[in-house]
């Protein structure tokens, strides 16, 4: 929470409508996002009750578990969901492009596009994760056999849920988070996780202010909650009787009229809870689409596509499900990657967006300055070689007080470093800085045209650097040191040997800890009963 965002919230409060906090969009919006609204049965551990799903706003698919405590019906639901989602997830693999080679110089390909799943709120994203967890270890054979696509769906959902932890990733979009990243409401962040209320602030209906509209939107009688939890009142008054009626109508010889009617009534009841959210979600997607994308959104989407390509290949390869929890090495590796992704995202957002950069200007980590004079052709002769080191004198009224020797970068010329060699802090609000430039000017002793700022130019300098930091090295899982419990049991290593070999061959920092390593995933949970 920056001061600028806090101020925007205060503004929104007074004006009765949400305020923009970015100038551009920082997430990728797919052409055909797969919208997914799960509902869960109260009191159960992530037991599906129903879902609305689809990539066409006009053609939602409704899935219902008519008796949520019945294991077979739950898996029928999972199979039906898989029949919709899995083909959609696989569809994007066919068209590929050449990507930059990896660290070992091996050629790489990536899909030109990737699937995007959109859910309403963090709880729905949590549902995706847990549903992935509860299905990916199932087996298509043996005592608790399920449809072969169910464990595949489980792995896909797990992939989406894990990828969503990456700052800046857009494979799984949580709408309340995405909207709150671009608009500040006049309520708290806690209340922003309620999609109808959040949208009420962003687009209050004619003649109402955001606060009133949001309050009405919170009333489950007016707007059903966006799930996965249902309104307890709906459960007690509508759902429970409908489920009972269905149970009563079900007879050994299926398909009677009474059963059809009962199941129709149940579907209608559930649909009434889902449809308003369906419409809201597409509205939210339209709002996000309307924002111009930030320049570096495409780079991050390319990383998402890499991850997608990688995972799809893995699924076709060994197809082993992701372990229940990360082993010692996998955990450390993943944390490392998440930290790098966050650092990159933080910088990229600021580079892409003057309003985000303003937050750094406020704290002195960036400043916007005017070039007073530029010595474009200055040559440094102090070293062994003559080097081009132009100097520009800039002046700013921002609060930043650069220290002599500090390095600054202008997002307009990201390859160029500017070192402060002289700083004059005037009595007034003005600071004058002499910056010595290096890099980004071509190889000759005269700079390429436009590579050195001209007098009169206004530009932004920041200490945030969008720099590639090479990934760190970690031991192989089988070399887990004694300080961290030693290598995992040999059996589990066997199970994943192939994967580990693939990973070490590749040697880059793509999502290789999504590979199962320290867990024998297949046996025990497959027998886990689910009711």
């Amino acid at each position: 929470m920056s001061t600028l965002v806090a101020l925007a919230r205060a503004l929104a409060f007074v004006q009765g409508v949400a305020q923009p906090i970015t100038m551009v969009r920082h997430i990728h919006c797919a052409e055909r996002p797969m919208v997914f609204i799960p509902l869960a049965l109260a009191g159960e551990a992530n037991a599906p009750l129903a879902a609305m799903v689809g990539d066409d706003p006009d053609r939602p698919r409704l899935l219902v578990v008519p008796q949520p405590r019945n294991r077979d019906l739950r898996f029928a639901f999972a199979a039906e969901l898989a029949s919709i989602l899995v083909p959609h997830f696989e569809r994007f693999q066919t068209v590929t492009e050449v990507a930059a080679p990896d660290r070992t110089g091996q050629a790489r390909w990536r899909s030109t596009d990737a699937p995007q799943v959109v859910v309403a709120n963090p709880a729905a994203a949590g549902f995706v994760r847990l549903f992935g967890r509860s299905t990916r270890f199932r087996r298509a054979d043996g005592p608790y056999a399920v449809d072969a696509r169910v464990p595949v769906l489980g792995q896909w959902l797990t992939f989406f849920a894990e990828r969503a932890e990456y700052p800046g990733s857009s494979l799984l979009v949580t709408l309340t988070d995405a909207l709150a990243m671009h608009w500040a409401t006049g309520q708290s962040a806690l209340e922003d996780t309620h999609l109808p209320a959040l949208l009420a602030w962003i687009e209050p209906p004619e003649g109402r202010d955001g606060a009133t509209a949001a309050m009405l939107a919170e009333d489950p009688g007016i707007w059903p909650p966006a799930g996965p939890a249902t309104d307890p009142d709906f459960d007690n008054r509508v759902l429970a009787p409908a489920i009972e009626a269905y149970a009563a109508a079900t007879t050994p010889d299926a398909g009677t009229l009474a059963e059809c009617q009962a199941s129709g009534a149940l579907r209608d009841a559930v649909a009434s809870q889902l449809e308003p959210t369906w419409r809201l979600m597409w509205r939210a997607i339209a709002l996000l689409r309307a924002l111009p994308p930030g320049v570096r959104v495409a780079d991050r989407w390319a990383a998402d596509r890499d991850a997608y390509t990688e995972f799809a290949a893995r699924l076709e390869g060994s197809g082993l499900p992701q372990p229940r929890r990360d082993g010692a090495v996998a955990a450390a590796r993943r944390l490392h990657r998440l930290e790098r992704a966050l650092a990159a995202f933080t910088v990229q957002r600021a580079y892409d967006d003057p309003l985000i950069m303003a937050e750094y200007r406020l704290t002195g980590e960036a400043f916007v300055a005017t070039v007073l004079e530029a010595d474009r052709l200055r040559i440094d002769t102090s070293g062994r070689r003559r080097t081009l080191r132009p100097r520009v004198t800039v002046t700013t009224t921002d609060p930043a007080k650069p220290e002599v020797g500090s390095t600054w970068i202008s997002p307009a010329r990201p390859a160029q470093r500017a070192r402060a060699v002289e700083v004059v802090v005037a009595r007034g609000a003005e600071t004058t800085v002499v910056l010595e430039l290096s890099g980004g000017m071509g190889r000759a002793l005269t700079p390429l045209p436009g590579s050195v700022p001209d007098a009169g130019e206004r530009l932004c300098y920041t200490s945030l650097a969008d720099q590639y930091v090479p990934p760190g090295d970690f031991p192989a899982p089988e070399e887990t040191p004694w300080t961290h419990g030693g290598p995992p049991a040999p059996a589990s290593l066997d199970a994943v040997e192939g994967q580990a070999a693939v990973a070490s061959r590749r040697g880059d920092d793509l999502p290789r800890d999504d590979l199962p390593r320290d867990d024998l995933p297949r046996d025990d949970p497959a027998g886990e009963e689910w009711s």
Partner: protein
Amino acid sequence: MTGTASPAEAADRVVGAVLSGLQHGSDQGIVVDSPPGAGKSTLVVRVAGELAAAGEPAILIAQTNEQVDDLINRLAATGAHRQIGRLSAVDYVPSPRVAQHQVVTVGTRVRDLDGSTVIVGTAAKWATVPEGTWPWAIVDEGYQMRSDALLRVANRFQRALFVGDPGQLDPFSTVESERWVGLTWDPMQSAMAVVLRHNPGLPLHRLPVSWRLPASAVPAVARAFYPFTGFRSGTGSTARRIALEAQRSAARSAHDMARSALDNVARSALDDAVELAASRGWALYELPARHTVRTDPEAIAACAALATRLLDRRAVAYSESAPSGRPVSPDRIAIGVAHRDQAAAIRALLPPSAAAVTVDTANRLQGREYDVTIVLHPLSGRRDATAFHLETGRLCVLASRHRHACIVVARAGIQELLDAHPGNTAVHLNVPVTFPDGWEANHAMLAHLERYRVIAG
């Protein structure tokens, strides 16, 4: 009977046990917990010397370049090493305290440091060393090191001595993830925690004596931050004292007059606080209750004014190491805060004569030592306590840097703030509870400080 042993004997006994474990034990690791100023570095240097003497080359893993250079300086001073290797990044420029020692070789690769009896580097640098295994490693500041950092270097050693102060700040990550909670190898915990969770049987020693903290400080710091283990002071209640050589009235120096920003700070209260701290080791300089921005101008001014006042009053510190007194010069004073912007604001207010006073955040003050510290209480002027401000280690670091006295600057109302603080909002399964709790430690510390209160005019 530790009760009757002198502090030196008690401390020697522990060090002896550590050394004998090193020579005769068969444990893969030895863990030494050290309260503030209990001779942790001395132990590290001593162990490195013993290992060198026994012909067992060791590697020393510290957390920051600053710490590495400090250790090298001390290792070199012992004369116990044929060659000391300093494993460094490419852009490392040897600091004067390293460069002065002939015995130190600086290299970016282990291969450049062949023949060293000890090789010292940061954990980050060690993580880039792909091979080689040494019989021993000494891991310094194991509570500041993150578990994943240890994972990356642990294959470089067979056995290790881990030392650290459990009262220091926990390592942190910019990433917020609950993904690994409850795992014994959770990469977000400290290196010490991960070692102990996987190897609960390792011998655990505790250095029993703080040589830094004065007798006036030990009971309060021990009770608030080391409630179960405790420790004692190496010096008696009369061993450390501060004399103020300038009179209250006499202390209007030229630069003092010039500081308009500080003029509205009531001078007599400042003097009261300085005198109280000089005579009793503690003072709580209390400003009226008010919610403020982080850089509370009054509190900032008070910190700067107290430091200046201390200099103006020409404080002289008498201790076992300086029986005839040593002036409390600016470099012997630190002002500790929670946030960087607070430090910057205080620095901007210090007059040139006090420019050498250290002003820094708790994170940066870890492991450092001063005669007098002035602490801006992390909760001063706040509306709400956050996990950051309640963190036990933050207050512990701030309250345990001094050899003579500590003056805490705070707005009234912290007690109420703590009382109104919503209780634990999240509890995770299978995560060992750490003690003390920040909330309780803060209460304990406040209760202690109450008795040294000076109300600012």
